[in-house]
């Protein structure tokens, strides 16, 4: 335990001393003296000198702001994804053979391939203008919200851990264990309405919290690296649920497939808009969770502690904040949030437990948290966006035959581009932000940590 702290201290020290040569100037500028936090750029580095902000014109602000970079990153990613779709399209390939004779054919085919795919994506995720009734038209949007629910919950867990300087790659396993426990309470206990669902939710929270708590505890006690631990526990969780689904306690009676019985009706999230839509109360829980995490991070002593641990563990320790306790706390809360995602799956969308209950939500949650810059509402918005990609991707695959894997490509490109604003700026030939700010941006705002 102390080894780990020492190690961290040495790390942050060496990071601080690395800047020593420019100490004289840097101290005045104030960029180089503190250890870079292991936290993705976000609220923490957002604090700029106010007079600088005011001195910029409105246009400059728009041109250099994060929001524009985010939008442009999405456009770039969609463009690259479109290229990929076009290149693998048969009609495009056919017309390419006589490209030099009639280039317009191939370009036209390419445009059609990509735009058809994206239109289908939009139609499947936001608004279907071909629907026969209004409810059919907005159905895709509710699908997006349904898919976004577990993404938001698990994404919040990943984001919270990021803020404490921990890379929680283990949302997948935490969702699985949370879902397993929740499902078990849901189909093997038979309780009155209300109470049953409440216990299901609590069971899911406990499952996720326990699974992540192991990581926090091992990291705190032995200094083992959380990236390795969480990845390994993902596999263990998957095998565990596979095993459980072969046992009588979990396997559906009369079935030889690894699938659990249906959860009781009393254990399910009620549907939000009735039978015609799959959207359930889990989404409202996700909104509440976002509010709670916002409060926790920005207004509570727990949040203060874990932000301090994430930004400078040595200073936190010197100020009497227990770094090891912080690791356990943050992992338990992160796991609880991932557990909520598991509940949303078994008590909401799926209604049963299978080994695929977590789909790839746990991994997508990482990109969601990164895209949301580890802030609660950013994560919420990113969850909606990726939920739309997921929901629309299914429609796109059936409508145009474009593989849903393209969604993974676009998602990961978005995160990469957003993490590197200078790249986006140079592609679109945007002005660099003011001199001082430019230096700040070159700071490793997203650096450090997982050494």
């Amino acid at each position, binding site marked *: *335990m*102390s*080894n780990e702290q*020492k190690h961290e*201290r040495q790390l*942050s*020290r060496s990071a*601080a*001393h690395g800047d*020593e*040569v*420019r*100490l*004289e*100037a*840097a*101290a*005045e*500028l*104030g*960029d180089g*003296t*503190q*250890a870079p*936090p292991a936290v993705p750029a976000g609220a*923490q*580095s957002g*604090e700029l*000198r*106010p*007079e600088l902000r005011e001195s910029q014109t409105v246009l400059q602000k728009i041109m250099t702001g994060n929001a524009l970079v985010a939008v442009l990153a999405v456009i770039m990613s969609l463009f690259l994804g479109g290229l990929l779709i076009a290149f693998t399209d048969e009609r495009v390939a056919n017309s390419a053979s006589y490209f030099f004779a009639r280039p317009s054919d191939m370009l036209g085919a390419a445009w059609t391939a990509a735009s058809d795919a994206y239109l289908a994506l939009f139609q499947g995720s936001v608004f279907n203008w071909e629907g026969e009734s209004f409810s059919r038209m907005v159905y895709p949007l509710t699908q997006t919200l349904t898919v976004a629910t577990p993404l938001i919950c698990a994404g919040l867990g990943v984001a919270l851990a990021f803020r404490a300087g921990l890379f929680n790659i283990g949302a997948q396993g935490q969702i699985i264990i949370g879902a397993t426990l929740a499902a078990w309470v849901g189909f093997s206990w038979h309780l009155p309405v209300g109470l049953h669902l409440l216990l299901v939710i609590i069971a899911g929270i406990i499952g996720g919290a326990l699974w992540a708590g192991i990581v926090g505890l091992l990291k705190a006690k032995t200094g083992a690296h959380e990236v390795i631990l969480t990845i390994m526990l993902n596999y263990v969780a998957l095998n565990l649920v596979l095993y459980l689904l072969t046992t009588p306690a979990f396997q559906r009676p009369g079935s030889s497939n690894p699938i659990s019985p249906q959860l009781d009706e009393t254990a399910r999230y009620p549907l939000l808009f009735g039978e015609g839509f799959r959207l359930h109360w889990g989404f409202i829980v996700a909104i509440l969770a976002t509010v709670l995490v916002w409060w926790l991070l920005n*207004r*509570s*002593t*727990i949040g*203060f*502690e874990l*932000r*301090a641990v994430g*930004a*400078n563990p*040595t*200073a*936190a*320790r*010197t*100020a*009497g*904040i*227990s770094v090891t306790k912080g690791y356990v706390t943050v992992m338990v809360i992160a796991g609880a949030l991932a557990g909520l995602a598991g509940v949303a799956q078994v008590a909401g969308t799926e209604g049963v437990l299978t080994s695929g209950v977590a789909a790839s939500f746990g991994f997508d949650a990482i990109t969601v948290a990164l895209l949301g810059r580890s802030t609660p509402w950013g994560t919420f918005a990113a969850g909606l966006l990726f939920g739309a990609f997921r929901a629309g991707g299914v429609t796109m695959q059936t409508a145009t035959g474009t593989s849903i894997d393209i969604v993974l490509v676009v998602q990961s490109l978005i995160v990469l581009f957003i993490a590197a604003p200078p790249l986006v700026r140079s592609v679109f030939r945007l002005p660099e932000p003011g*001199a*001082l700010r430019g*230096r700040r941006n070159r700071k490793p705002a997203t650096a450090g940590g997982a050494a």
Partner: protein
Amino acid sequence: MKLELQGITKRFGSLVANDHIDLVVEPGQVHSLLGENGAGKSTLMNVLYGLYEPTEGRILVNGEPVSFNGPGDAMAAGIGMVHQHFMLVPVFTVAENVALGNEATKAGGMLNLNQTRAKIKQISDQYGFDVDPDAVIEDLPVGVQQRVEIIKALVRDAEVLILDEPTAVLTPKETDELLAIIAQLKSDGKSIVFISHKLREVKQVSDIITVIRRGKVVGDADPMASTTELASMMVGRAVSLTLDKAPAQPGEATFRIEDLTVHAPNGQRVVDGLSLEIRRGEILAVAGVQGNGQTELTEAILGLQDHTAGSITLEGQELLGRSVKDIIRAGVGFVPEDRSVEGLVGPFSVAENLILNRYDQPPFAKGLAMKPSLIEQNAQEKIGEFDVRTQSAHAAAGTLSGGNQQKVVMARELSRPLKLFIASQPTRGVDVGSIEFLHKRIVAERDGGTPVMIVSTELDEVLELADRIAVLYRGRLMGIVPGKTSRDALGLMMAGMPAEEALGHEEQLGTDRESGEQ
């Protein structure tokens, strides 16, 4: 080799770190650069060494303009540098460090360390260094590490040697040895640029002194000039080098350390059977060369060290074995030695840093909920009281200058009732104006009846503040002596001589040797 800097300007954004600096270093001269922390000395040297590109101006070697694209070019031009924080890879051997960047190789890129070893031996013999080429750097004392740095420069045939604050980490004895080495290098025709803010050393070693203030050359000074004269040139106004301090009115001893032993995680005994006590209303300064157990001592008091034995009591309460939080709540105020690493959370706002160890205490929090308005109000008060220069209470603490960061730490620690106040290196890297202010606050805390412990490696600071001085050497207490003890005696103790012996030694010598500064 003659080295000239003409009109060197270096800007970082809107900040001008160097403003049209002209400097001529003649061969075989020791040329000192004197200036406060933050005056721009290191920036200038990093420009000269190719680490920074100058915004304007040019560098001439033997009258020919040169441009350095990196340290490699500077070295090729015959410039060597010994950095304030040694540029040595701690897990490498001496030979590997010397070879790095200048490797002798056999066929196929295989290292030929034997050739490097031979060179080290040759230089080592020539200057009387005694350095084992196969020793691992992290096992060597700092004095030897510094020699490795000098060897690194000499192996590369440096004609101009830049020494950046070379004495900061040395004992007085090691400092004397370094000054002897400098003399020898000078007689070999090398030019030395000696950067320091320590007036006595600069006077002792220099042929010529250039004073820098706020990025500009103020002028050249004669080494024979008086310290007061040099100090006022450096600071830009008349400074009183002594603090107005009433004699201490010590009360009862409320803080006691008995037989404290601290082990580092690697098993080394870093504090060894230390006992002392501090009375209310007195300042005990802990002196010693960096790395002799001071850090571990203060950390043990605050509960930051794990492997401790002995006893630490504050007003009869045992502190050892309690959590940091408990100890802070018991009334221990602590200013850590490295504020940016231990004292502040850089990305946090000034307001948040001002409550860093009271964030969960009323009035700033009730239960889990924090009170932003009260935190803000507290920040406004402290910013005013301690004259913290910041854009607002919401500015990230990492954006403040060193002096203002230290004021934030000091404001946080001194703004609650204390039963013990510990400050490690309270004024390291702080400008003179802030130093005076911080010293006054420390004395005020003492006069309010708090036992105060100051840890400093700067003898000047120790002598200025201390009512009594405890000297540490290799984790052991060499003795506790009165605040007026001479520099020479303290120097002997810092090199490992027990107090009685050092004071006796001092008396013998005192008659026929000028005693330091006074």
